[in-house]
């Protein structure tokens, strides 16, 4: 069973569209994250949620809106997509907000904006 899963795996869309990426974890973790990996493989945190509460928001444009309906899910909705949004988006989860907590990553969603 996949611990952290994301759908879709690939997403190709036109500029200006609105799209969502879904993430689910079956590890019973309290904390979930979204990361963006750019074309140079640089990984940067976007958001984190703990028990459905927003903990980290790294000055991401407000076109990006995370939603956590429950502890096991953290979805990412993107409005008015721009070319610069093309990247691989990784979801991750960890047991909670504690020292040394390993983050488990999903397989990634490759978003291409045309």
């Amino acid at each position: 069973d996949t611990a952290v899963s994301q759908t879709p795996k690939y997403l190709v869309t036109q500029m200006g569209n609105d799209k969502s990426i879904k993430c689910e974890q079956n590890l019973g973790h309290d904390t979930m994250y979204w990361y963006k990996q750019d074309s140079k493989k640089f990984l940067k945190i976007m958001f984190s949620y703990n028990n459905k509460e927003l903990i980290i928001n790294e000055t991401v444009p407000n076109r990006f809106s995370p939603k956590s309906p429950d502890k096991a899910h953290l979805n990412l909705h993107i409005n008015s997509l721009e070319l610069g949004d093309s990247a691989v988006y990784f979801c991750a989860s960890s047991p909670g907000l504690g020292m040394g907590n390993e983050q488990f990553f999903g397989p990634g969603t490759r978003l291409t904006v045309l």
Partner: protein
Amino acid sequence: AQSVSQHNHHVILSEAASLELGCNYSYGGTVNLFWYVQYPGQHLQLLLKYFSGDPLVKGIKGFEAEFIKSKFSFNLRKPSVQWSDTAEYFCAVMPGAGGGNKLTFGTGTQLKVEL
């Protein structure tokens, strides 16, 4: 705010060669340190982590890393690499208290192991 620098962006080695990838971080307080690996087309997997105790940490697949607090370093080592170690390697730092588990990654080192 914390930051991480990885000095080697591309490393090419022959099988059985020894590996050392550099990682330095910048943060004034207690830190947790991680090395993640990303095999081609796959997600990130944890190789090893340090959060307290013995500064020499052993991870999976024969990797190890040494935390040297005075040098703010956490270099990754492997005595003898294999072709299957070809991947992207990321060093990451997390503040030890507070910070919401914010993991900051270095820019990555692409390792290619040739037969």
